[in-house]
């Protein structure tokens, strides 16, 4: 088991390095940061001097080595645009994105899992068909349209919820959280729903498919034949076994949720990493873009490591050696 975890960590490091390389090398081509950093009237000679100062004229490999080396030292460089340390910029935005992503994930689980269970247990019900159809339409509308619609319905027309930003936040040891104020929750609701819709459908369909699969297994039929109470059978037996594969897929998807929050953040002016990333693209702020990619990849491998550990926790077959 220790070996298993070590192996996954080794693979994670490989993924991180590859992403760092990609991030750096690809963004090296995005455009000329100099024209963005300087004003309308800056002379060509001044631009060239700045280029030299920033090391943009050095050979490519040299620049990458510097990039990775600095990163390992915890030095993520400075933004071309704001001249702030990238580490500060990104880390100050991480709470917003993570809270959005996690709440979206929780919403999608809170709704998706029961809906999946219901539709799996009553595959022919009218409500099942309605749920399936609604969610299908839900995932077929582009996220940004859903977001804007929600804003106009609940923000502008009904005036129930704020239309942008994080609302009230509380600083807890450097972590700026929306979760401790009513205002924060109100602001979080619409973006989280927008971000969660796609995930919700995915979760529901996955749970439904796995659950139907599990309900046909011998151990469920045997539990039926022993007269195990239905509620216990559905939740303790079937759902637990359903969640084993579902957790992996959700883990794989979480990185996508974080990345897809780019769209949601841009619609709701949610001050997270995604918004920062979009601004950085606009200004060709290469250090910020590069670090963002690396951070996203880091979340991805981290979540998957957690999923692996969860697996071990849930599934005794991985935890306890076979004695036979």
């Amino acid at each position: 088991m220790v070996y298993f975890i070590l192996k996954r960590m080794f693979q994670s490091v490989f993924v991180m390095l590859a992403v760092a390389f990609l991030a750096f090398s690809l963004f090296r081509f995005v455009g000329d940061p100099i024209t963005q950093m300087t004003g309308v009237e800056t002379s060509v000679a001044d631009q060239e001097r700045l280029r030299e100062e920033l090391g943009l004229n050095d050979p490519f490999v040299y620049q990458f080595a510097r990039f990775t080396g600095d990163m390992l030292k915890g030095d993520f460089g400075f933004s071309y645009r704001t001249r702030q340390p990238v580490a500060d910029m990104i880390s100050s935005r991480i709470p917003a994105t993570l809270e959005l992503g996690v709440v979206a994930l929780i919403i999608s689980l809170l709704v998706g899992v029961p809906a999946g269970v219901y539709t799996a247990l009553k595959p022919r019900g009218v409500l099942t068909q309605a749920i399936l159809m609604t969610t299908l339409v839900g995932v077929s509308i582009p996220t940004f349209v859903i977001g804007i619609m929600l804003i106009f319905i609940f923000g502008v027309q009904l005036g129930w919820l704020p239309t942008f930003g994080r609302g009230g936040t509380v600083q807890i040891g450097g972590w700026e959280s929306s979760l401790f104020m009513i205002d924060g929750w109100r602001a979080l609701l619409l973006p989280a729903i927008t971000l969660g819709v796609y995930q919700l459908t995915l979760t529901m369909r996955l749970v439904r498919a796995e659950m139907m699969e599990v309900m046909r297994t011998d151990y469920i039929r045997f539990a039926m034949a022993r007269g195990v109470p239905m509620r216990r059978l559905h939740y303790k037996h079937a759902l637990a076994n359903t969640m084993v594969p579902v957790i992996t897929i959700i883990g794989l998807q979480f990185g996508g949720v974080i990345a897809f929050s780019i769209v949601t953040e841009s619609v709701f002016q949610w001050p997270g990493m995604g918004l920062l990333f979009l601004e950085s693209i606009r200004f060709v702020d290469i250090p910020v873009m590069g670090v963002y990619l690396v951070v996203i990849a880091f979340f991805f491998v981290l979540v998957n490591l957690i999923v692996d550990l969860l697996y071990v926790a849930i599934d005794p077959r991985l935890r306890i050696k076979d004695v036979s």
Partner: protein
Amino acid sequence: MIAFLKKYEGLWLFVHSPAAMIAALLAALILLGAVFAPWIALVDPYDLASFSLFDGLLPPAWEDGSNPKYLLGTDDQGRDMISSILYGARLSLVIGLSALTIAAVLGVGLGLAAGYYGGRFDAIVMRIADVQLALPAILTALLIDGIARGILPTAIQQDLRVAVLTLAIALSLWVNFARTARASTFVQMNKEYVQAAIMMGQHPLRVMFVHILPNILGPLLVIMTVDLASAILLEATLSFLGIGLPADSPSLGTLIRIGMQFLLSGEWWILWIPTVFLVVLVVSINILGDFLRDVFNPRLR
């Protein structure tokens, strides 16, 4: 008839599934409209001389101030909405289908080989897939877009926009195919017909493509439909983020992006008609995907 239908179970299921039939009908109509757009459409939205700003912002035919020539109205450039949508669907489908083809060829090829050879080759492919997964679709697309912008001469960037977008979407989809193909191949590798073929000394490529591939097509087909839907949506989202197609050669996604500007201004048709159209298209494809899933996995029926 019954005997015929019994033989082709999928067909039988199909004619007994109203949702699938309606979806197929709508998808087929849209596909036909897209294919024959140059013959059906009133104007060619790519030909700047064929429309005039003078006709701009006309509402659909049933509203006041409309021009009956433009049944669903015109946009802010004076383009007929119907024509734009037909051409837009054409472009969206071209991008979606070509991205899908590239992703399928790449993903299935790698997945088959990984499943067939296993071991180190498999490990390498899966690590590459991990890296790809760590960069979700939207980031991959942004990356590809960025690199294309950087390395292509500006002169041809415009012409290669569709190709770049297609490649970007394709790269974000191939992992799906690779993982599914790999998993299915692993299952097939234990089947005795594959062992028989290997034992005979058949060429690995023949074993992979002639023997295994036809047996794993089912799940791949399901992925194809689902991914076609997500490719179309992804293209729309990229357009929203401003890295999609230019406004003068609009896809459905670009039309929606343009329409977003008119969300509040009263010209609702510029946003909602393409949106409804897109949703109908994507829902249809998804329903067909569901249907195929049911056919290939009868236990879920």
